[in-house]
């Protein structure tokens, strides 16, 4: 069975895209898991028989804040790493 050059290029692209997608998915899952954990700790101090509306508000705020924290940490970390690289470490 012959494999054409075009076919191989297409399959290479497919492999690369599926790896990128997988990694992005894992990243999103980790963010979800972490924010759920932190926000449960912060907002649900006494678990009762349902989520009260103040608990829901707290959770909504918390999730946004956690994402924002992730972005701040991400920017600061990447910026610092590139500074260190330029300084030759």
């Amino acid at each position, binding site marked *: 069975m012959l494999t054409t050059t075009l076919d*191989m290029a297409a399959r290479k692209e497919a492999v690369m895209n599926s790896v990128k997608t997988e990694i992005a998915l894992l990243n999103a899952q980790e*963010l979800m898991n972490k924010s759920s954990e932190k926000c449960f700790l912060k907002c649900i101090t006494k678990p009762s028989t349902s989520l009260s509306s103040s608990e829901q508000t*707290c959770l909504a705020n918390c999730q946004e804040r956690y994402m924002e924290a992730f972005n701040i940490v991400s920017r600061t*970390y*990447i910026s610092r790493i590139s500074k260190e690289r330029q300084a030759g470490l």
Partner: protein
Amino acid sequence: MADKFDEATQKELATFMEQEQAQARLHSSIHTLTSTCWDKCITGTPSSSFSRYEQGCLANCVERFLDTSLFLVKRIEEQRQQALGH
């Protein structure tokens, strides 16, 4: 599947995989650091935005963490040099 790609393509994929793995390790570090710095800096109930203090604390936390790493690595290296009699 690997034996259906020519050598040039295999090399390209190997380089690509290394880059993606480096990215994944970077993400992992950022997740851990976000978790640690959240615990250190966000002590009250989350509201609709961060205070200036909280924003500053998060950024400082990252910088100090990296300073800590560098400090400790340097110290170990110095001790090693001393032990070798340099």
